[in-house]
């Protein structure tokens, strides 16, 4: 079976199980969660005057992994339950066993694809935000890493907003700015936690 056939089959499954719509929704929602969570981690470290990049990287990576696993597990279990319920409901109409048909396979493929997207979207979104700290050996200045990371988070939020704007066929700029407001609000509120030494 070559790659083209597999892609064709995936496209067919996507049409049957409406994978595209739900995957897009999960991607946007969880990437957003990933970025905002990482803003929280960064601001927490910044407020606590953490000046060791390895601490920020280790807490950040641990958060990335936890979010990835949370997304993967949560989506898998939820989606599997929902898809099974939908298949049983459909079987009630056709009065046949659909589990071994294309519909059953599409349903199972949807569970795996959606779970992967739900897990990897926050993981990678958070990892992108953390990049300046991964490059801290080059950047040297810890404050620069904080500012760059927060800047990257805002850029990532704007990109996500632009993506949603494109999906909804609304203004890409406006949609991107709406996302940035969420990031700025999160940064501002977290800033009040800043403990003076």
């Amino acid at each position, binding site marked *: 079976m070559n790659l083209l056939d597999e892609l064709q089959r995936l496209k*067919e499954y996507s*049409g*049957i199980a409406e994978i595209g719509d739900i995957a897009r929704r999960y991607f946007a929602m969880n990437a957003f969660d990933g970025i905002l969570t990482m803003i929280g981690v960064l601001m927490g470290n910044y407020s606590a005057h953490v000046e060791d990049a390895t601490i920020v990287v280790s807490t950040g990576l641990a958060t990335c992994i936890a979010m990835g696993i949370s997304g993967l597990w949560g989506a898998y279990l939820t989606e599997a339950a929902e898809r099974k319920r939908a298949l049983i*409901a*459909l079987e009630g*109409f*056709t*009065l*046949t066993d*659909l589990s071994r*048909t*294309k*519909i059953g396979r599409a349903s199972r493929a949807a569970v795996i694809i959606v779970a992967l997207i739900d897990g990897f979207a926050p993981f990678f979104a958070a990892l992108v935000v953390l990049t300046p700290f991964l490059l801290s050996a080059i950047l040297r200045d810890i404050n620069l890493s904080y500012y760059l990371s927060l800047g990257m988070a805002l850029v990532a939020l704007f990109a996500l907003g632009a993506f949603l704007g494109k999906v909804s066929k609304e203004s890409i700029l406006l949609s991107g700015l709406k996302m940035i407001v969420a990031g700025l609000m999160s940064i501002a509120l977290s800033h009040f936690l800043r403990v003076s030494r």
Partner: protein
Amino acid sequence: MGKIRRLVLDVLKPHEPSIIVLAGQLSELSGIDGVNISIYEIDRKVENAKITLEGSDLIYEDVLKVIEENGGAVHSIDEVVAGKIIIEDAETPQDVRR
């Protein structure tokens, strides 16, 4: 045994895969020259389709496999034509409407 030239099936199927996909896959079977699928009833989750297949040598088991693979269930075989040529059903006095 004579070759089957036409089959008319009454099928209940989910909305997806669509009849476009189903017709395409049925038309790819060997011995089939043409496929016609028309929907005559739509429910919330399923639809009733009349599937007409014509060809030089239809293999019912293959047709059934494709329909079932796409989640459909054959409710009845409404017409079969077999032999060297396709013949329509002959009109009898009972068919004449008064």
